[in-house]
């Protein structure tokens, strides 16, 4: 061994070492708050949500703070909420899905038409709807993962295909609520109401809540969830680290297709009827992406929590109902919602910054 090597001898003998520690400078209430924000990123949209509720509550009084209005918000966001859960999954993988809304509408049409056109039992028709959704998701996933096409383009194309197929297949005929109610009430299952005082919860709302919680658990606490984040963070690194990127992406896209079909079923519950021209087909994608981004999930993938997306959907819902109830003119409402979208994210950024 040569001379110059010997300086390494110093480190050859091991000493007792402990992990470095410094005084924690951020004690007290602010320190805790600070730490909580770091540990739970979805806290920020939650704060924005609570503030929005407070402001409208003060302006509109008990008309707004009634159990009726509060649960009405949940009912009004249930479709977007379910779609936002699906969209979150895709965005976490650094993708984007423009076809979610159209898929939901097509699936609801399949559920309806399979029952009324082909006389399938409603349960089977609902299952077929789920299958169609999952298949569409699988097609998206395969194009993204195997053919390496950009998700934006794949789902843009799929959006148009699904929407046009939906119009063509249904001949644009609405199945009326009255018919469904008498002949296939199961289709409206998710519209069942649980009334507690003035508060009204539908099964669709319950489904949304359960879905969000289950997905939050899966993303946080299972290997699959970790893989979803890793793939979104850096797919190349994930592949080298031994994640089966293809399988992860396929599972995400198929699950998303399935959730979209659920959203389609929720739509039947909420509107009673099956309508191929439901606007969700056209603007469901932008609505769900808005919720996701307001909820703090990065469009570049790998960062954010699905709870955040849910709060994002609620934030928009609160703004919309609040503004409508204050009687703002529709264009002013749109304009204000535009302002508030930007403001919500500004507040989010600001909170993150002062507590960084």
């Amino acid at each position: 061994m040569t001379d110059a090597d010997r300086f390494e001898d110093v480190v050859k003998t091991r000493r007792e070492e402990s992990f470095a520690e410094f005084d924690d400078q951020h004690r007290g209430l602010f320190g805790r708050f600070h730490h909580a924000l770091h540990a739970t990123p979805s806290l920020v949209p939650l704060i924005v949500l609570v503030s929005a509720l407070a402001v409208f509550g003060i302006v509109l009084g008990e008309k707004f703070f009634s159990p009726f209005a509060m649960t009405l918000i949940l009912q009004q966001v249930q479709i977007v909420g379910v779609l936002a859960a699906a969209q979150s999954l895709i965005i976490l993988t650094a993708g984007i899905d423009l076809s979610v809304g159209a898929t939901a509408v097509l699936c609801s049409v399949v559920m309806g038409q399979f029952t009324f056109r082909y006389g399938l039992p409603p349960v089977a028709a609902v299952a077929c709807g789920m299958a169609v959704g999952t298949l569409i998701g699988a097609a998206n996933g395969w194009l993204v993962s195997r053919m390496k096409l950009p998700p934006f383009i794949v789902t843009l194309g799929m959006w148009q295909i699904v929407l046009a197929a939906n119009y063509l297949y249904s001949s644009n005929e609405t199945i009326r609520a009255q018919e469904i109610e008498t002949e296939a009430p199961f289709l409206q299952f998710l519209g069942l109401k649980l009334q507690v005082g003035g508060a009204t919860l539908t099964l669709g709302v319950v489904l949304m809540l359960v879905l969000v919680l289950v997905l939050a658990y899966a993303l946080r606490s299972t290997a699959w969830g970790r893989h979803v984040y890793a793939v979104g963070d850096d797919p190349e690194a994930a592949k080298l680290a031994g994640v089966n990127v293809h399988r992860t992406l396929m599972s995400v896209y198929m699950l998303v297709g399935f959730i979209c079909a659920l959203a389609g079923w929720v739509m039947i519950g909420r509107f009673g009827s099956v309508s191929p021209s439901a606007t969700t087909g056209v603007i469901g994608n932008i609505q769900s992406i808005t919720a996701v981004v307001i909820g703090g999930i990065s469009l570049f993938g790998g960062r954010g929590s699905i709870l955040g997306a849910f709060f994002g959907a609620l934030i928009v819902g609160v703004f919309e109902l609040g503004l409508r109830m204050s009687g703002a003119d529709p264009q002013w409402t749109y304009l204000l919602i535009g302002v508030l979208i930007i403001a919500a994210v500004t507040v989010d950024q600001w909170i993150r910054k002062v507590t960084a």
Partner: protein
Amino acid sequence: ADISACLITKTDTNPFFVKMREGAEAKAKELGIALNSYAGKVDGDNEAQVSAVETCIANGAKGILITASSTSAIVPSLEQARAAGILVIALDTPLDPIEAADMTFATDNFRAGELIGRWAAAKLGADAADAKIAMLDLDVSQPTVGVLRDQGFLTGFGIDVKDPGRWGDEDDPRVVGHDVTQGNEEGGRKAMENLLAQDPFINVVYTINEPAAAGAYEALRSIGRENDVLVVSVDGGCPGVQNVADGVIGATSQQYPLLMASKGIEAVKAWAEDGVKPQATEGKDFFDTGVTLITDEPVDGVDSITSQEGLALCWG
């Protein structure tokens, strides 16, 4: 004001609805009624209308005036509203079923189409047998207004429409094709160009509304065919009637949104104060606010007024 009412339109990006709202607002002010207006984001936006109805219930409105985007899908929400003691009036577009509203104040859209169809056929005379027709419709989702006017036009022109519930299924060779316009100038021009590329000898153009007609005219003008093609339309807005006067549009069916709106507001007031509901036009299941053909080249067998007269009645 302790009486409050809601006006829910399909969108508020269409001058038709803008004027309807202005009419309603003016009347509401006059009668001391508080009016909240709502609109969908795009044509066909049922979701936004459902949310609007729910908001009106939460706000304790006395009456809802609605031009439904989806005539049947909105019905369950309106039933809720009626159950809460709210008077529901359909404007412009009848609900499906029509009894889902307490009353309907509307144009007969099929008839509006039929009038311009008959006018165009009469104008061509014998040449109608080998006309080449371009159909510039609203949207691929085939909203009901668009279907009614399209099918009305074809019927008036003497073409078998097959299923009257949808456009595009007829097999008459005189129809060159359908394209969609979104009801504005931009879409009108592109749709016209597309159909002209398919068959440059088109000589009759049906358009869903007057902005689409203006766009189609620009496309015709750019290839120098603006003088030998008949363009017909529906609406009777002031720019549209002016276009009839200028020879851009051959004939248009005029409707009366301000009338619908003011009638609606009056009905709400009557309901809130005296509990009475409005009556339908004799012999119809709705209150027909009327439709009039406007053209400066009248033909036999179809009643019409001139653009000069039309300008006095136009809206927007």
